[in-house]
């Protein structure tokens, strides 16, 4: 299943890096925690970190293109899934991570493939409401 929430967090971090959008990324993570029944704060933390990573990319790169966004999403999904597993299991059984990795990589690939389409949709939406985007993606 592609992680659409994470794609949005990366999009917010790369193309709309504001305090408000940071709060939105946090809120999205919190909502996922509230619905999924995991420990409160887990996805809020991870999505905020992903947002920070995307924000950092937008600051260091001259132009944050869609390709960069795709890579950021891929890395973000891997980080989020591994972090989710490690924190949920109390950082203990890291030796079983190799069993999890194939599924994580597949999810990361699927989510990354979907990224350009989601970026396109959010770009249309932003233009419709008159939002200015940072680091235009060509």
């Amino acid at each position, binding site marked *: 299943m592609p992680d659409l929430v994470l794609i949005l967090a990366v999009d917010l971090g790369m193309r709309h*890096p*504001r*305090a408000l959008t*940071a*709060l939105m990324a*946090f809120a999205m*993570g*919190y*909502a996922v925690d*509230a*619905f999924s029944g995991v*420990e*409160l*704060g*887990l996805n*809020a*933390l991870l999505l*905020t*970190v992903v*947002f*920070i990573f995307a*924000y950092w990319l937008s600051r260091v790169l001259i132009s944050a293109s869609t390709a960069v966004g795709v890579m950021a999403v891929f890395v973000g999904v891997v980080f989020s899934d591994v972090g989710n597993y490690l*924190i949920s299991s109390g950082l203990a059984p890291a030796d079983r991570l190799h069993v999890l990795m194939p599924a994580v990589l597949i999810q990361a690939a699927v989510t990354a493939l979907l990224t350009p389409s989601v970026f396109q949709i959010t770009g249309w939406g932003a233009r419709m409401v008159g939002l200015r985007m940072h680091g235009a993606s060509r």
Partner: protein
Amino acid sequence: MKGSFLWRNRVVFTTGLLLLIALHFLSTGVRPEARANKPSLVLMEAVKPLLVVESQMADDASDFLHNYFDLVSVHQENLRLEQQVAQLEGQQRRMVELEAENRHLADLLELRDALDTTAIAANVIGSDATGLSRTLMLSEGDRQGLRRDMAVISINGVVGKLIAVSHDAARVLLVSDHNSALDAFDQRSRARGIVAGVVEDGLAMKYVDRSEDIKPGDMIVTSGLDGIFPRGLLVGTVARVSKERPGLFLNVEVKAAVDFRELEQVMILTTRVPAPSVQNNG
């Protein structure tokens, strides 16, 4: 204020603060129901209409797909059943045909028993294609015991006699052929004559004395004097009697008892019938 350090780095400070809050939530570990319930309940209520619509759409899509696949399988089932019905109808027609053939053969058997003679049943497999002579082909031959000049009859009456026999087939010269000649008499008046085919169609009874009493409707039967046909087999009925042509004899037209065009099974009398002793007409 806008130019201050805090304002310029507001994103960093905000995300840092949010991280601290998230870590604080995590560090408390357990999920106290009082804290988790309210936000999750609010979110649930907010998302519920969307979930209802999504669920409905998923159900509709699923129903549509199921109905489509059901229709496809119903169509295929329909084709299969149509083929089956056609096969069954064909079988039923064959059964009806077999039933009719069975009845004919049973009637022929009955006739054979009544005649008290040996006989062989045969199917009519062909007729003369040229139309110049009136003959039939039969499905039995000398391997089944047939010989030339054996009498051929049906349940309705006299058909003809065998004129050619091969291993597995035989040819019958019908009484309606102009080359055929059959000794017969009027069952009512006992008037005798020779029944032969006429070129145009039908039968004629020849050499009937002008003084004889023959009327339309009289039945003409075999006399048995030719040694081929047993006595008393129906040849036909008198259709017309006329004395128009001059001469010693009547013109008697006879309608054959057998419809040669619809013959399917016949019986061949394999026992030669002894000719009855000649009796004076009294």
